[in-house]
C-alpha cells in the first residue's frame, strides 16, 4: 500500500520517464527516418510534462488578482513549454523537410539503405 501511494504520488514522473526512455529508444532503434522523428517528438513531449506537472496546483487558478481566489498556479512553466513546443514543431518541420529531400536524392528514407549508396 505504501509503495502504491509513493507511486501514485509520483505517477506523472513515471509517465515522464516512460515517454523519455521510449522516445529515445525509438530514435536509436529505428532506421526509418520518419520513425526516428516520431521518437524524437515523443522524447520531447516527456519534457513538456516534466515542466507542467509541478506547475499545476490543485484548485489553483490563473494568476489574475481577484477577490474570489487565493490559490494561483505559476503560469511561467506553461509559457516556457509553449516556447518549447514551438521549437519542437520547428525541429520536426525541418526534420521532415530534410527527409523529403533525402528521399528525392536517395530514393529511400531508410538509414540502412542510404549508407551503402554512399559507399559505406
Amino acid at each position: 500500500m505504501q509503495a502504491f501511494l509513493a507511486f501514485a504520488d509520483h505517477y506523472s514522473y513515471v509517465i515522464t520517464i516512460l515517454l523519455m526512455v521510449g522516445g529515445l529508444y525509438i530514435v536509436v532503434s529505428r532506421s526509418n527516418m520518419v520513425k526516428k522523428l516520431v521518437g524524437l517528438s515523443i522524447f520531447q513531449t516527456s519534457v513538456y510534462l516534466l515542466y507542467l506537472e509541478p506547475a499545476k496546483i490543485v484548485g489553483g487558478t490563473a494568476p489574475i488578482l481577484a477577490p474570489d481566489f487565493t490559490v494561483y498556479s505559476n503560469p511561467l512553466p506553461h509559457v516556457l513549454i509553449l516556447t518549447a513546443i514551438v521549437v519542437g514543431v520547428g525541429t520536426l518541420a525541418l526534420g521532415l523537410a530534410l527527409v523529403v529531400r533525402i528521399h528525392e536524392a536517395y530514393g529511400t528514407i531508410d538509414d540502412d539503405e542510404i549508407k551503402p549508396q554512399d559507399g559505406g
Partner: protein
Amino acid sequence: MEALWSHLPALQIVIPLLGGVLVALVRRGSLAFALTLVVSWVLPVVSGLLLYQVLSTGPISYALGGWPPPWGIEYRVDVLNAFVLMLVSAIGAIIMPFARRSVALEVGERRSAWFYCMYLMCLAGLLGVAITGDAFNAFVFLEISSLSTYVLIALGRDRRALVAAFRYLIMGTIGATFYVIGVGLLYVLTGSLNMVDIAQRLAVAPPEQARAMVAALAFLTVGISLKLALFPLHSWLPGAYAYAPSWATVFLSATATKVAIYLLVRFLFSIFGGALDLRSLPVAEILIALSVAAMFIASFIAVYQSNLKRMLAYSSLAQIGYMMLGIGIANQAALTGGLVHLVNHAIMKAALFMAMGSLFYRVGTVRLTEIAGIGRKMPLTMGAFVVAGLGIIGTPGTAGFISKWYLAVGALDRGWWVLVFLLVASSLISVLYIGRVIEMAWFRPAADGLAEAKDPPLSMLLPLLLLAAATIYFGIDTRLTAGIAGEAAQFLLGGLR
C-alpha cells in the same frame, strides 16, 4: 548615443536577428551579402565595447524589456562571456569577405540569400547563448542556432550533406532536450531560471536536494556535451563539417562548439560550482578521461582520412579534447589554457578550413590524393595552411603552443606528470596528419589536373592570411587572449566552493 550605449547587450542580438529577416526579404544575392557584411562588421564593435565596459567597470546586467531579474530575462555580461562574444563576432567579421565567392560557387547565387539569412540567425543564436543570463532563454537561443545550422549544413552540394544534417538534427535535438530536462530539474529545485539566482539558491539548498542537483548536473553535462561533440558524443560532427558548404564549415568549426563549451563552463563553475563540491564528484575524472580519449582516438582517425575536410573535423574533435581537459583539471593555469584554446583553435581551424575552401574553389576537390604539388600552384593558400597547421601541432611561436603550455603547467601544478606526457604525445599525432598534407602539397610534383590552379581572389585570400598571421601573433603576444582568459579563469575559480 547615451541611450544606445546602455542598450548594447540587446543590440548584440537584435542586430543579427533583424539583419537575418532583412536579408530574407531582400532575396538578391549580392545585396544580401552586402547587408550580411555590414551586420557582421558592426557586431564586433558592439562586443568590443561590451568587453571594454566589462573590463573597466565589472559585469553588466541588462533587464530585457525592463523586467528586473530574476523575474524577467536578464542579459548578463561578465569577463567570460564578453570574451566569448568578442570571439564569435570577430571571427564572423573576419571570415565574412571569404563567403561571397565561396558561397556563390557552392550554394548557388539563387539560394545564397537564404544561406546568409540562416547564417545571421545562427550568429544571433550563438551570441544569444553567450550573452543571456537565463537558463531557459539559453535553450531557445541554442535551438535557434542549431536549427539554422542544420539548414546551413543541408545546403552543401553533396547529397551526403542532407544525411549529415539529418543526423545532426537528431543528435542536436536530443542534446537540447537533455539540456531542457536539466534546466527543468533546476527550476523545480529553485523556482528560478535566472542563472545568478539559481546559483544563489542552490548554494543554500538543503543537503537532501543534492541528489536532484547531481541529476540536473548529469543531464546538463550530457546535453551540452552532445552539442559540443565531446567524445564519444561526437558522431554527428565529422559528416556535418565534411559536407557542409566550405564557408559554413569555417564558421561552425570556429564558433558553434566554442559557445557550447562556454555554456558548459558557465553551468559547471558559475552555477554548480558554488553549490556542489565538484571535487568530490567524479566530474573532473570523467571529463579528463573523455578528453584524453578524444585527443588520441580522434587524432588517430584523422590520420587515416582522405577527405581533408573530414580530417580537419576529426582534428577539431581532438582539439575539443584539449579545451575540455582544461575544464577538467580546473585550476588557474589549466582553465586559462582551456579557455585560451577556444580562441586559438577558432583562429587556426578557421584558417585551415578556409584553405580547404580555397582549394575547393580553385581545384574542386579536397581529397588528399588529388592535390599533389598544389603548394607551388597556390603558395599563399598552402603557406597559410602550413602556418595554421603548425599551430595545431603546437609548435612554439604559434598560438597552439600557448594553449598547450598553460594546460601542461596546469597539469603539473596538480602533479600529474602522466597527463603532461599524454598531452604532448597526442600533439605528436597531429604532426602525422598535418604533415601528410604538407608533404603532399609541397614535396610532390604537381598533379596533371592542377596546371591551371592558382591562389584564390583577394577577398578569399585576405581573411585566410589574416588568420594565419594571427596564429603567429597570438603565439607571441598573448595579452588579448591568455590575458583575458586568465581573468575569466580567475573569475570562474573564485566562485568555486
